[in-house]
């Protein structure tokens, strides 16, 4: 899609906005609808849009696939690791009270922040990884032939 100037300009503007929105959804989930999963999807959409308009190679330069694959695993490790941390502090698995025994509700906030981050990281990674995997496959015939 190299000749679509308008698409390219608009995409460049949009990608930043989408990523910003993803962060908003990620960290504002306590107060309004949304959370790690939705944020992850939106974040991934930014990269997918970039990939669709500028081509897969460009997208892979920005967000190389080895990094994507590391993120896929990292998110689960963050989530499960939060539970292990609370366990090491002498509490039950995923008992966020462990992170601030004096004010359990503050501990809860930290815990929720951490696990939502984990969800967001994994979902971003997985969605982008799936997109890369699909887009890398050779199509049976060219678009023009349909």
């Amino acid at each position, binding site marked *: 899609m190299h000749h679509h100037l308008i698409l390219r300009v608009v995409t460049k503007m949009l990608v930043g906005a989408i990523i910003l929105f993803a962060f908003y959804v990620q960290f504002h989930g306590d107060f309004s609808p949304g959370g790690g999963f939705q944020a992850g999807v939106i974040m991934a959409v930014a990269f997918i849009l970039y990939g669709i308009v500028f081509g897969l190679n460009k997208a892979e330069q920005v967000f190389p696939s080895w990094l994507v694959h590391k993120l896929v695993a990292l*998110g689960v490790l963050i989530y*499960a690791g939060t539970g292990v941390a609370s366990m090491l502090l002498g*509490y*039950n698995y995923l008992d966020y*009270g462990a992170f601030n*025994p004096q004010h359990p509700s503050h501990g809860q906030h930290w815990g929720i922040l951490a696990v939502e981050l984990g969800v967001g990281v994994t979902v971003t990674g997985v969605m982008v990884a799936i997109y890369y995997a699909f887009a890398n496959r050779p199509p049976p015939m060219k678009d023009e032939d349909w």
Partner: protein
Amino acid sequence: MSAADPHYVAKTFMDHLPILQVVIPLISAPLIIFIGNRKLAWIIAMIASAAAFVIACLMLAQVKDGSFISYHIGGWAPPLGIEYRIDALSAFVLMLISGIATIVLPYAYTSVKSEIPKRLHTLFYALFLLCLTGLLGMVATGDAFNVFVFLEISSLSTYVLVAMGAGKDTRALTAAYDYLIMGTIGATFFVIGLGLLYMTTGTLNIADLADRIANQGANRTVQAAFTFIVVGMGLKAAMYPLHHWLPNAYTYAPSAVTTFLGATATKAAIYVLLRFMFSVFSPGFHFEDWTLYLIFIPFSLLAMFAASFVAVFQTNLKRMLAFSSIAQIGYMLLGIAMLNATGLSASIVHLVNHGMTKAALFMGVGAMVLYSGSAFFDNLNGLGRKMPFTGAAMVAAGLSLIGVPGTAGFISKWVLVQAAFENGWWIIAIAIMLSSLLAVIYVWRMFEVLYLTAPAEDCTATDPPLPMLIPMLILAFACIWFGFDTELTLGSARVAAEGLLAGSAGMAH
């Protein structure tokens, strides 16, 4: 115990056993991907499943007297939070699943090398651990919706593991697709059932559900929920006639995957069935008795005969064993339908005995395929003579599959027959013996191929390398050992069966 409790006592390692059981493989899987090293992948997987096995044994030792362990995840007491609840039955099944995983991994190390392209090995071990995680999670949890989540972890990884057989035969892909469609329909049915239960009770905790259903009386929503849960899990357990995904999936999956799935996946689904039929819906639930007598018994008899009959006419050993699995699931369901303690213990002990038996057999086939290239009978001619140890292991396991006295398989069938006599169902007792005759025929066909035909002249087959051979021999030895020493298997199964029949009373707080 709430998170707000200021006088919190630091917990010890032993207190965390129930959650560690599932979380260790769960963390190891992303760790494998994060490190991304093929050799480390196997080591991590091995350590994780061995740890899971040790934990399961420790827990079984704790609950063997009929007590249970309850673990409140997140520190939230049920029914607010999710609870892990381990009793004799779950500990016993956990031990089977993690034990088989531990014993399959050394075998997989060699077999995967020959069957799956190198670049996929890291992913294979991660998926294997996820499958293990899902199965363990389904069994350990005391929360109905949590069962669904872990069921899906194990199912999704299973579909991919089956599809990994595509390098040898492309039919693995369509087998995986079929399994995916059937499995997802099954899981969705299960979710519908849970929704109906939630609607009538307002809770998802299994013990709490049991309490609240007990005072519902004849509620049509609960009856529909029961139907959907049984059909949904029946699909997963390959209950006749919902078994259509199984033969292809087992035939075309890589050997290590077939071994693991054949010994554990359907067993975990049967565990969930048991859990719901006896712990959630109490045996006094009139609708359930009716379903058991009118649906379960005919279909399990049909499974025992029809599937065994089809197994007799197979020319592919792996496929033959797959059909035999469907028949064996029939025995387990028959034991459940007897609705007495002996029948239930027969089902539970058969769950484990058949798991070990089938694992040994599938391992043997896998080892032979390594040399012959396929599991078709004419490619296996005389291999028992060329591969003496593998052949011996398969003979032992084959005898156990028939249920010859002195093997583990005999114990479960014997108890099942006893249960039939307890109910005065002597026709069914005869049916059990008759269907065993069919097993004699197909197992005999296997012996015939392995020993009584001449091997091809240029056959260079020898016993496989030790990492493959030793697990096989251990399992074959277990098939014999548990035919004499029934203290662990039958003993645990009896405790578990009594716990189940106590119904919701056994699960009360």
